[in-house]
């Protein structure tokens, strides 16, 4: 009894002006259905927790910017100019790294520092282009493959043929038939790369199209554009980003490989493949080994960075890993 009295007196002391009755607002009632979850914000949150990946992202962005800015910096040599000693008129062959030529010169006197950055630019360009082509063709064919049942057996058979033959062999065949050049390399790589992407999109289209939550969305009258962007896209993003990130090191690796077996870019276009291939000759000469080590180091940094970042971003953009 005593206790009850106490509680009553407490309640009476509370200032009633602090409270007011809420009015019914139909808009606000609707809002309750949505959380403040933001897909991209969560993705970013998960990604930034991976410190190694963030560090490598900074490295890659810096490298990318540097390949663009480098030719405009003061005191840069041209990557294709053959440097000649003014006194003797001879080519400045195989100079070790110095203040004038930061990474030394190659066997015909070209500046390795600028060749490496120019080569990185070429290789990154190839990698990015192949990545985007893979995405566009892969998503396009994949969605037709999954959506139009009539095409399913035909595309499946094409897919079987392509995936049964070792990728390396297709790559070699195409590059061998066409004239050497950047376009050849891009075409040769794109011919095989779209298949994985397309198969993934196809399976996803088939699975997700008729899932209960999509059925529910359709029943609620959600427009197709919203279903596509909110229900489908988040499932695709993780793989798209992963494959785009991995396409770059893969493409650079293939470029190096094609150059190595003699059907890569022409020698006058500096690329990481060309530089490594030129440097390989000096592998056995310790004093000239720098010509191999510098391009190899840049190649390794780029591939490792994109690989680790791709995996981290792939994990981060998968909605299952959020929260």
């Amino acid at each position, binding site marked *: 009894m005593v206790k009850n009295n106490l509680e009553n007196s407490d309640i009476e002391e509370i200032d009633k002006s602090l409270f007011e009755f809420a009015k019914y607002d139909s808009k606000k009632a609707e809002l309750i259905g949505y959380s403040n979850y933001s897909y991209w914000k969560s993705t970013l949150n998960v990604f930034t927790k991976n410190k190694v990946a963030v560090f490598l992202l900074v490295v890659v962005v810096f490298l990318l910017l540097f390949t663009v800015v480098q030719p405009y910096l003061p005191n840069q040599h041209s990557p294709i100019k053959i440097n000649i000693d003014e006194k003797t008129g001879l080519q400045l062959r195989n100079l070790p790294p110095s203040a004038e030529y930061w990474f030394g010169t190659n066997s015909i006197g070209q500046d390795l520092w600028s060749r490496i950055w120019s080569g990185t630019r070429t290789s990154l360009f190839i990698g990015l282009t192949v990545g985007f082509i893979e995405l566009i063709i892969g998503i396009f064919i994949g969605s037709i493959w999954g959506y139009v049942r009539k095409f399913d057996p035909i595309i*499946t058979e094409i897919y*079987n*043929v392509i*995936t*049964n*033959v*070792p*990728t*390396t*062999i297709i790559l*070699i*065949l*195409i590059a*061998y*038939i066409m004239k050497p050049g950047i376009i050849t390399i891009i075409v040769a790589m794109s011919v095989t790369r779209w298949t994985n992407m397309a198969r993934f999109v196809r399976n996803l289209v088939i699975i997700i199209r008729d899932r209960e939550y999509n059925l529910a969305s359709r029943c609620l009258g959600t427009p197709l554009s919203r279903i596509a962007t909110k229900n489908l896209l988040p499932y695709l993003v993780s793989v798209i980003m992963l494959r785009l990130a991995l396409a770059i*090191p893969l493409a*650079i*690796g293939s470029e*190096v*490989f094609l150059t*190595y*077996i*003699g*059907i890569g870019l022409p020698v006058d276009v500096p690329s990481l493949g060309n530089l*490594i291939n030129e440097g*390989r000759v000096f*592998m*056995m000469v310790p004093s000239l*080994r720098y010509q*191999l080590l510098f391009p*190899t180091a840049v*190649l*390794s940094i780029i*591939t*490792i960075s994109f*690989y*680790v970042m791709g*995996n981290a971003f792939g994990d981060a953009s998968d909605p299952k890993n959020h929260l």
Partner: protein
Amino acid sequence: MFKYIINRFLRSLLTLFVVITVVFLLMRMMPEEGYFGKEGTDKLDAKQKEAILTNLGLRDPMTVQLKNFYEELLHGSLGDSIIYRPNVPIGKIIKEKAPYSIAIGLSALGISLITGLIMGVIMALKKNKIPDKIGTFYVVVIRAVPPIVYYLFIQVYLTKILNLPILFDVDEPSSWILPTVAMALGSIAGYAMWMRRYMVDELNKDYLKLARAKGLSEKKIMFYHVARNALVPMVQYLPASILFTIGGSIYIESLFSIPGMGGLLVDSIQLQDNNLVQALVLMFSVVGVLGLFLGDVLMAMLDPRIKLHGDGGGR
């Protein structure tokens, strides 16, 4: 079971037929220098070139060319080499080269299977502990660093450290070691990664609770249940890693000067020997198709749960 194998085999044959035809047609689009040799292109005049092409049957209608090509293939003939070793049957060249590639490829496969599987099991058992982290680091590095980079480093530095020969020599057994190990490194990473994945998946399954409740020892659970079940999907990876050794062997054989098929492909490409390139591309494709076929059959044989009379769903 039988029905499945026959069905899968027929589909592989169809694939092979398409591949062979496409390769043949694509090779007809190649520059014709490949039929005269580097010197011949400069020395011969247009009439002589035309005569050579006609003699080779390249001026016949495409249907006739295709028919001749299939007939020769059925008789087991791949044609003659043009530049690499003029007028020597390609079959003979391959017969000389193949044993080296097969020997090194199979040794590499053996090494990578044993090492990779053991590594994967250890990684799964010590999940998130130091052995797992070291293993994961290895996997990431091997998958991220281009093979040419670590092959070169092995050839330049490891040969010096271990005092092994830099180039391959048939009569010198120690010269076999590094090429084989180098070739195995990539597949070791693959086996370890997948074995760990499947083991970890298997460890989370319900039947293990029953096994523990029955009082089975952890050792028995690990080896009779977890490892055994995890091995089933690994079988399918086996042919894929044979395919991988094809790519690897192209680098390794030409780096270490091994007189094998991978090095032969590089040489024939650099010499632009059209016939030889065509024959080798065909051979590697056949290996690829057969490898995937065997993988599917092996997996279906090992795991009774896999649906046998397929509707072609899997791949």
